């Protein structure tokens, strides 16, 4: 899992992510996020990298 910067335009990505949710209700917004996770997961592909990413994401929420 890569933890250093890979994004070619970090601020631009962040803005685009927020804009994508504009005008959506909570359910639509949740669905967009879920779809996005699945699409991005397929770009990554590697099962071990994805497992590390999921663990890292959860770690920041539960602390372990």
């Amino acid at each position, binding site marked *: 899992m890569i933890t250093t910067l890979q994004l070619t335009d970090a601020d631009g990505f962040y803005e685009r992510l927020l804009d994508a949710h504009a005008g959506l209700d909570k359910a639509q917004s949740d*669905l967009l996020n879920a779809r996005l996770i699945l699409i991005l997961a397929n770009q990554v592909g590697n099962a071990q990298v994805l497992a590390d990413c999921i663990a890292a994401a959860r770690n920041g929420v539960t602390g372990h």
Partner: protein
Amino acid sequence: MTRSPPPVAKPYTTAAHTNGYEFTQGGGYVLPEYPFVPPPELTHTGPLRRHPVVIVGGGISGLTLACSLARLGLPAVLLDEDNTVGVKGASSRGICYTQKSLEIFHRLGIYERIAAKGVQWSVGRTFAGNDEVVRFDLREQDSFNLSAQPPFINIQQFYIEGFLVERIQTLGHVDLRWNNRLVAFEQTAEGATLTVDTPAGRYQIQADHVVDATGSASPLRKWLAVPFDSQRGDDRWCIADVRFTTHPPVERHTWIEAPFNDNRAVWQHLMADDVWRIDYQMAPDADPAYVSREDVVRERLARQFGPDVGVDIVWVGPYAYRSECVHHMRAGRVYFLGDSAKVVSPFGARGGNTGVSDADNLAWKLATVLRGLAAPALLEAYHAERHSAAVENVRVTGRTARFLRAPEGVERLFRTAAISLARQQPFARALINTGRMAVANPYPHSPVCAKDTGTSVQNVGFQWPDDTTGCLNDLLGWSGIRLLLLVFTPTLSPALCKTLVSLTTLTPVSAVHVLPAATRTAPTPERKTPPPHMAAEHLIDHLGHLRQACGVSEAQGDNHTTPWALVRPDGYLVGRGHGLDGNLVDTIALALAISPLDDPHSTT
């Protein structure tokens, strides 16, 4: 041991249907009945009779084991608590049989009857709402296309059980005892003692090996306090086995969210006698009595197929599933088979087919050990191989169940996301899980298979020198309980021939000379009387399928190496190599558990 001729039940040609609706009861089919014959032990006095193998339970797993032992000529007793196949009052159970099961049934001699009665299918389609989101054709997949048997045949389970009974009656060796109910069991270092109730009284027998094929409500597991893992969900389904005035396509259709079933899942599958299985997912809090009431079932069917379609209801059964898996497939002298060892949800046909493979795995091991050709440690490998298969099947079916019964909240959110993406992007179709169809489980960590083997060899075809065709099962039928050695070489030199004669004389191996496709001369040295365990004729791998199915590389043809593959009586590859050398001898010993089990892979 003398035995009177087996009682012959009237064979049935086709199941008669009652058109009446049977609420969660059988009666939709007329099942064959077998006569009770008082066992000799009832009148026998003196010491208890001892049998090498006693099988408890005459379902698909127990009967497959019994038929396999009968084919190998090993005597056994089978106890069944009633007098028919199928479960009284619940005639519809498994319907979908895998290529591996069909290959096993072919070896047992009942495949032709199954093929004639059942329905072949290979296309599966999955829908969400009104859209098709996934479609597959198993015939287009490499993993299925080498075998003489099709990917799947659908047929009511009791037909297969009935065919097995009749086959066992023809083969002999196995004493089928109907209306014999096991009521008590104990085992010591000396043997197992079984107490059996019959309509004519109670008797006891002793056994060296006992096979528990009593199914998901196994009494033996309770008596022996066998530890197991269990998981129970709240998913509820209701099966309707029906006949129509119209004919749906010969395909497996699944709906994740069916508009005609309140956006819950529906299965549409076919079987023999033009009967269709329509399986409806119900609300988790649904009342089983209500959802299987005739007017409710008819209303549901009308919503799916239209109000004008005539429907005969053959059988209806509401069910909930659980998953269970024992920690060990053996407890002393008792081996757990099929549903006695593990139960799974029905998704992917991983119940009955697993039981058939359990039986096929255990049969040759019992036969080889009892005949003194293998070490008793081989029987422990039944656990190693089939427990890993059970665990895998529990895991795979559990994932499907989780997809299909996705609770509201994040699990439903991701399923909705996956379905919506599957309509647009091919990758997401792999996430749609309405059942991963059962396969012949590989045994990558088997203590009795060499590294990178332990895979099932498909029942591939080849040519005999006279241009007639044969298949791997013909060879396995010939080699019986011996290991089958395939030697891939264009020319069998006198030196190689001498080695093979020694090998097949000194070890329980039968050898066949396999010629590559291009060679059409007859290079096997002429012999007036071939050694008993060497095939009299070579065979021609005209399409290269045998080599391919055994994973033997194409670099054959030069005389410096002699590629070989060693196949067990259950059609699993146990080793391969490139010369008739010490590695081959080590592999034979490994396969028969004669070499130390602690480091099986040191032979490579």
